[in-house]
């Protein structure tokens, strides 16, 4: 289990190295230092809210994400949600699974899959259909972490369609 989790984190790191660690991100162009400082504050607050039980915390997080947050904050939030999956934040995770940034999408799908069961299958299916090859690679990793007959079928179909990924996985195994 720990091995797969490590692989997932490494794939996420490949997807977006600058957001793999919140404190390692570059400053976006023209971003005011005061704003940059607030990213850490907001990320820390969101992390605390995710750990906070009760619907009110979930509502605040949902509202914050709906209003829009910098990718660095979203990355932190999704990493926390991967570690502490919350079903009441499913809409947040699903919304971020269609973000334009592949790194956010990848993190969201990982967090989505961590909810288990049908959510994991839906996350694998979404990753397998993604136009970004790195996300399709993530589908394979998610299927290994959340094994099921449906996940196996999805991966089989993916490998049949994506020769490059099939070759890559064949070489690595």
């Amino acid at each position, binding site marked *: 289990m720990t091995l797969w989790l490590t692989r997932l984190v490494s794939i996420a790191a490949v997807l977006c190295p600058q957001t793999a660690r919140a404190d390692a991100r570059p400053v976006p162009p*023209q*971003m005011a230092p005061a*704003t940059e400082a607030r990213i850490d504050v907001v990320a820390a*607050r*969101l992390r605390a809210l995710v750990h906070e039980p009760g619907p009110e915390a979930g509502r605040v997080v949902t509202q914050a994400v709906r*209003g*829009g*947050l*910098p990718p660095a904050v979203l990355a932190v939030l999704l990493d926390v949600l991967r570690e502490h999956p919350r079903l009441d934040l499913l809409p947040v995770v699903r919304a971020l699974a269609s973000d334009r940034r592949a790194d956010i999408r990848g993190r969201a799908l990982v967090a989505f899959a961590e909810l288990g069961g049908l959510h994991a299958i839906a996350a694998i299916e979404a990753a397998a259909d993604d136009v970004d090859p790195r996300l399709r690679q993530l589908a394979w990793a998610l299927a290994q972490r959340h094994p099921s007959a449906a996940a196996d079928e999805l991966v089989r179909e993916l490998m049949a369609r994506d020769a490059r990924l099939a070759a890559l996985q064949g070489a690595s195994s």
Partner: protein
Amino acid sequence: VIARLAALLLALGSTGACRVTAMPVDAPAHGNMALLAESSCRPGAAACVPADAEKTRRHDPLVVLIEERGLRAVEPDAGLVRWWRPLPVVGHPVADASTVFVPLRGHELAGVDRRTGEVRFRVPLPGEALTGLTATGSMVIATVVGTPRGRSEIVALSGADGRVRWTRASDARLGTPAANKKVVWVPQDQQVVGLHRRTGREVARIDLPAALDGRSVEQMSVQDRALVAGGKDAWFDVRSATNGRGAASHAVEPGYADVFALRSGMDPGHGDDERTRMWIGFPDDAGAPRDAVLLGRRAVVSFRLGPDGVPSRARWAWLAEDRREVVALDVGAHRVSLIREDGSLVVLCRNTGEELDRLSGGSAARGALLLDMGHTPVPGDARRRVPDEIVRGQLVRVLSDTDPRLVPAQKLVARVLWRADDADARRTVRALARGELRGEPGEAADVLRAHALELTRGAWGAEAPQDVQGVLLALARRPSFARGEHPVLAPLAREVARSGHPEMVPHLVEHLLHPATRDTDLTEIASALVAVAHPSAVEGVATFVRRYHADAHVVYASRALQLCIDYLAAQADAEEHGGPEAKLARVVLEEVWRDPFTEPSLRAHVAPRLPRSPAPDTDDIPPELPAVSHLGL
């Protein structure tokens, strides 16, 4: 020798050179205000003059002005009064090659020599009131009501002396007849009856209950090969119905002007309603776009009419410089002739609207019969087209005039501007809808604003339905690795912007929010949403802006976010929408401006677009930080 003579005679006969009959059969009827069918000739094409037009061109053009005290005939080429005759005219005179037939007060009909003005005959008409007249080679046909034998009667009189040749009674209400060489066509409620011209024997009967949407046929029009039965703003093309080329039933989008006068059984004479009328041209191909000319009192607008009866591209517009109205319009093959209420004549080039001639009037005219006008080609006119920006200027001039009498013409102008593939043209209509143009108080401005609002809520452009369907199908495809779908959206988005169909907007929004949409496509999609400006996209665009306003990568990858801000600003400004969409747009703009995480260049873009609030002095982050504060910080 006999064989050679026979061959010569046959050749002469086939070219029409030995034709004895010189009477034209297409005499203009009812002051030329009614629908006139025409051949497929394009103005300026010298080789396509219809045979009948060629025949009528043997006669000098003549303008017969209907004045309060009589008739005045003017030679437009020379600018001279040819004759004046004190006759109590009621109804609409008609003419053939030699005679002007004039309905008179007291239910009489006079035959006036076209050349000299001499009254050849003056005879009583049967019945109590005249419905309509038509002249056809040596005969004049009248439909009347209130006869002892029945409700209505068709009377054929000699064009030479006014003697009755034949009559036919009818229980049904009759309309204005028309005739060709052998047959007189008479509208009879929802039927058209064909009568032999010489004997009055019935030779044809056509049922049209569905063709005109249940309305009565008011008028027949025969010219060249066209036989048209019309009522108000709809008509039935008998030729198309019989040869199967194109649809037979047609209608003009209502609300601008009638094509056919509504007689309701009696000819009321030249009335006020004739000063707002639409002329339609008929091409050979019934499915092809038609030329149309709208007379709207002081304005004349030439435009194309789509097969769906909706006005499309404007060709030119003319506006009288003073307050006098136009009382008669004649559209010839090459020229458009206008008679104004002071009796003056204005001749315009049919192709360009350029003023070719002007003849000052003598006394007030309430109508006119224009004979053999407009068939002389305009030198250098062939293939000329008025540049779009000039036409737009002419249209805006019509639209900007505060004269309330121009409302029908202005509604049409707004319609064609909205259908133009030109963003500037659309902006004019939006300005009208918002009250930025014609913002003055008054009923006319209110009517125009309401019309513009209705237009801006719908599609713009003039796309064919099958093209729209094709674009919709292409837009319905989403990027998918599994299905191998990688749609190229930029051309589709441009197509949406061009056609402006609201049903395409949800697809655009979905592509805007789809993570796999390319950055270049994103810009085109946002541009299309700005162009279409439909409020249904507000929610999706708001989601997009909220989601990415703090993402520098997305902000700099394309112009989509800036364009989405433009779209929201336009929606927030749209007072007419005043609903949840406008409110949401305002909220999102405000949020994005206030959010400390908003990418600075985007905030600078938002700042001047904040609706109905004082423009911020600075682009700096405002002191309040709601995005942070709502997290309890």
